[in-house]
């Protein structure tokens, strides 16, 4: 076999390898565009269905309430129960991130938007703010705090121990002056 004779298979093989490499690269590029196995898991809605105890910092301190969440894929409905009153809620999940709105009734209705994350220890943490943003009266006791108020929730109602917001002893919040 002359030199040209054995070159042809090599060129063919090189072309094949190059094509394979190109294909492989293309496949990898696609993998970057589409969720990998682990990324798919991150975007898969966390499981939040059920009842939660929530502690929510408000102007007078910490409100303790019950969330009853009904999950339908990445959509959340349910109720927010406090002081014998029940308010509907609607929201959504994106992976571990949860957002839900609670429209509170009364003489001056308002809607609070809760944003947070769900961790693997059956706990949610986040902040809340008035839907629509803007000024929030913080009161003379808290006039230097920003309007975003923290909240924490733990799954289930069996544990009746205190659910602490950041306002409880030993956990003074970090204030932001205005």
């Amino acid at each position, binding site marked *: 076999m002359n030199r040209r004779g054995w070159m042809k298979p090599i060129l063919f093989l090189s072309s094949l390898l190059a094509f394979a490499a190109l294909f492989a690269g293309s496949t990898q590029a696609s993998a970057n565009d589409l969720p990998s196995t682990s990324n798919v898991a991150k975007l898969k809605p966390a499981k939040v269905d059920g009842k939660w105890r929530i502690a929510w910092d408000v102007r*007078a301190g910490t409100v303790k309430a019950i969330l009853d969440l009904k999950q339908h894929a990445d959509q959340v409905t349910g109720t927010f129960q406090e002081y014998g009153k029940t308010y509907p809620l609607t929201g959504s999940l994106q992976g571990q991130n949860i957002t839900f709105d609670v429209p509170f009734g009364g*003489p*001056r209705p*308002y809607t609070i938007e809760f944003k947070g994350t769900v961790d693997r220890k059956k706990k949610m943490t986040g902040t809340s703010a008035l839907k629509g*943003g*803007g*000024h929030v009266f913080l009161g*003379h006791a808290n006039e*230097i705090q920003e309007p975003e108020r923290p909240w924490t929730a733990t799954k289930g109602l069996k544990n009746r121990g205190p659910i602490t917001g950041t306002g409880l002893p030993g956990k003074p*919040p970090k204030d932001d002056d205005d």
Partner: protein
Amino acid sequence: MSSPSFLRMSLHSAQRAYLPIGKSVLGTLLALAVIAALSTIVLAQNTPIQHVIVVFGENRSFDHVFGTYVPPAGQTVHNLLSEGIVNPDGTPGKNYKKAHQYEALDTITYEISPTGKSLFAYLPPPLAGGDEYCSDTTGEPFCTESVAVAAEPNLSPAWDQYLITGATGIPKKNFDTRITNDQNLPPGPFQLTNGTTLTYDDYAASPIHRFYQMWQQTDCSANAKGVQTCKSDLFPWVEVSAGDSNGAAPPAGFTWFGEGSTTTGEGATSMGFYNVAQGDAPYLTSLAKQYTLLDNMHQSVMGGTGANHIALGYADAMAYTNGNGSIATPPSNQVENPNPQPGTNNYYTQDGYGGALGGGSYTSCAQESQPGVKPIVTYLGKLGLNPNCDDGNYYLLNNYDPGYNGDGTLETFTPYTIPPTTQRHIGDVLGDAGLTYTFFGEQWNLYLTDLALQNPLDDYCNICNVFQYATDIMTNPAQISAHIQDLTDNPNTGALGFFSQVANGTLPNVSIIQPSGFADGHPATSKLDLWEGEVNNIITAVQANPTLWQSTAIILIFDEGGGYYDSGYIQPIDYFGDGTRMPSLIISPYTTGGNVYHGYADHVSIDKFIEANWNLPAISFRSRDNLPNPVYGSDPYVPINGPALDDLMGAFNFSLAKK
């Protein structure tokens, strides 16, 4: 007019008559003897006043509002203009240096008169505060007037327009470039408004106003001879240095002169003043020229809102208890500590901020070893004054929520409350005498549906309600209903609010009105013109009932000076104050004429007026309403028999005929 009123007039005429001979010790003693003799007669008498209405505003010092006020002919006033500190156009006057402001050095332990002072070359640039944009969902300012009026219905209609104006257009904590020459201000008071980029109707920032901070800002000291001076020359320094982190270290790159999160967010906001000579505060100015302006009325307690409202209600500070009347020790993280954090210049350890969500606010001032206590007690000791701090008591110095919710249940939303108190209050004194009293808190009705104050639109001020702290009121629904109402009627219970009671002629003997956060005039969260609108509505309503008007004294007052600079004298009374002067006016058929009353007064003077008017005893054996009326020497602002507090009777002229 009844003869008793004439007798009371005689008493106060006697006091005034002896002012010119104040330099004479003999004359002073004679005046005291006359007063003492007349007091025994007069105490059994009454005046035509059957209704006292106290209307609170929030956070303005006297010079901040009336710094350039010129009284009618024959009257004098102490302010920035009369002292030559500023000119009528707001520029520095010939005596501007009297108000010069300094930076100082405090790195080891808290001092009320720190050393190492040096004049600021220029003030730390004042930073912006208040809302940048309008919003119909949250208000202050609103975007639409109809929405605004639905949320805040208690202004006179002419003022409603101001509910939708005044947004700053500048992010909070950024340089407030609306202020003329904002980054090169001389080291003293500056005019906040300029008629163009920053008008009287614009929102602006709120200075720090806390207990230990204000003691430091006023820079009081006494020499070995017992001569006392308050220089009031550290306002901006404390404002930019003290911090508000409750134990956290200062932010990296912390600076006094910058903007943003590496600062306290204020700059030298404390030095701004309005210029009434150029049209600011027009309604208050017109009231001053028609009725009586007090230019020696002070906040009772150094610092902020809660403790000063308590001063009116109890004529005393309030101590931490177990909730059943026994003195107790608060958790350690509720104790204030103004000592500077290590490695800092005056960055406080526990700064008094935090309120319902944390931060220390109690002090055991009978223990000199407690943080912050010794410098104040030492100062008072040089003056021979009793701090009035009982052993073991931890007194509330700033803002903690009352121990009760509005429905009488215990406030358990936060541990940062003052526990329910059995301390005697002015309502007890009135009630014992068969007199009536009500606290009218705007938005009380809304608050009753929102006890946790979780509705961000709920601007009710719980810490301002002096009766919400009290067990004898809050544990009895009938007492709550009798003594706490809204300005408007309660749609759920049918209870009549202030305006209905005025119209019906059923107003109690004593009314205390606290506007909502929308209209209280507090800088950053409200505006002074909104307070003017609510005050106008109240006065107009009372005057519309001629019978009521003829028997009423409306006392306009602020909770405190808000941390704004003031050039007035400050009388040392006890550990808690007094603090800076605040604007105050008495609106009544018997206070007409545009007088300026110089009698030394604070919130407790209103208690003294009530007690003098109805012949009532003092609230307790240790309350400040036991202090005598002042006697003056050559200086009509400085009592020579201090501590002393005026009962305000001298501000009235009951010989004025019905008009």
